[in-house]
């Protein structure tokens, strides 16, 4: 089990490296924000530990905070990234989008 997990870990590292080294400078801030949203996946950790039966008031409080934190990370991260990227549309497209909106 551990060896399999470690293999996945190492491969994922290389995938991250390969995918991200191609990003142009311009998109670095949205990329940072996007990857930031993805590590909000720690939310799953909170869900698993709480959902599979944490006992005790303090444990439950800590886990609810952890889940809230994780959710802020995920939801806020993706929304902020979307807002940033929304500004990168080229001019004609953006005008069209505005007209559609109105």
């Amino acid at each position, binding site marked *: *089990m551990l060896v399999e*997990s470690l293999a*996945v*870990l190492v491969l994922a*590292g290389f*995938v*991250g490296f390969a*995918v*991200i*080294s*191609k*990003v*142009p*400078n*311009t*998109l*670095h801030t*949205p*990329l*940072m*924000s*996007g*990857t*930031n*949203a*993805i*590590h*909000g*996946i*720690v939310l799953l950790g*909170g*869900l*698993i*530990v*709480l*959902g599979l*039966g*944490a006992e*005790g008031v303090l*444990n439950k409080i*800590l*886990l*609810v905070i*952890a*889940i809230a*934190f*994780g*959710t802020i*990370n*995920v939801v*806020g991260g993706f*929304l*902020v*990234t979307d807002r*940033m*990227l929304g*500004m*990168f*549309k*080229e001019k004609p497209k953006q005008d069209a989008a505005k007209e559609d909106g109105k």
Partner: protein
Amino acid sequence: MTTFIAVLYIISFSLFIYGLMGLTGPRTAVRGNWIAATGMGIAVVATLLLPGMGNWWLIALGIVLGTVIGVPAARKVKMTAMPQMVALFNGVGGGAVALIAWVEFRTTEGFQDEPLYVAIASLFAAIIGSVSFWGSNIAFGKLQELIPGKPITIGKLQQPLNVVVLLAAVACAIVIASGGSSQWLIIGVLVAAALIGVMVVLPIGGADMPVVISLLNALTGLSAAAMGLALDNTALIVAGMIVGASGSILTNLMAKAMNRSIPAIVAGGFGGGSAAAVGSGGGEDRPVRSTSAGDAAIQMAYASKVMVVPGYGMAVAQAQHAVREMADLLESKGIEVLYAIHPVAGRMPGHMNVLLAEADVGYESLKEMDESNSQFPQTDVALVIGANDVTNPAAQSDPNSPIYGMPILHVNASRSVIVLKRSMSSGFAGIDNALFYDPKTAMLFGDAKSSVAGIVEELKAL
């Protein structure tokens, strides 16, 4: 059922990877972001399908709380405040990891019956998560100017003290891993790690903050991956590790663009006393040519090509809309207007592009450093707005300068230069800029926004 969940996890991290690939191009980026978000949604649903899930009300409470806090924060934040928002989102992610590790310790009574690797991974996650949470909050405080942006140190004792605290955290962790189960041990780990986060980020100057946020982002990713190992959860391992890898690359890129080494930044060597002392030495009695908005407008109106060089000063003054208006006026006179973007202009790589895009500046007129540098010799007027260190020729000519070797925009290669600046004060790096004393350069003192607005008025009157 568990196979089904495993398949959902595989779909979800495939979507993360595919989404990130989309983020590599401006055309596919918006879609890429939503693909990754969809992956996240699937991962959450898959987790909730795990057999034996309970505590539904508490789970719902946590998610609702997070949504109610996160959504308005993300919607309302100003584009100039983006770096600190990312710092904050990163911090809560790290905080979540640390809290989960703490509860893991409590529910397993100090990892009594768990394999050793679970204890090690959880403790690693606890330390890194806590460092990331507190470090990010300090970074947020500095960028939000709740804490002075200048380096705060306690002198020479700083680094030995950091090492001692780190050793304390690791020592507590080792005692736990080898069987200790006292509550105070895990609290010791978390508090020591918190101190490290605070003490490492406090001495770092504002100019290095983007590198720090990126580093903390990578660390949070690694802590999530460690959590995944401890909980045996593939989605956590893959997503966390991808962020860890990407964050490391970004950090490296940023540090390179500033000619800084990551260890030097973390040790807090720059922007402190010695660099400032070097800066105040040179050239204060040299003459500076100042100009007026009217003259600047005429100079640009008779140019055929204008390069705007925006810096953080433009962002602080919220001048990007005025700049766009000025560019539109110039373009209506048939003048080519381009923007030269240094990789670290603003406070994060690409931050300036976001700010200009917010002001409806076309993506195609933003030029990256190499292309800008080949354009400057054909440029009639280079308009530097609130940028300083990234235009400093000393980075190439003066081996004694603290920024020697940093790639810069060769603004002084253009036929004339107008610098918009509040005063003659030095930039983040605290060093004097020879560009301001160049005979080709004219200084237009004042707030960037009102200066540009003045130029716009004059252009309209022409």
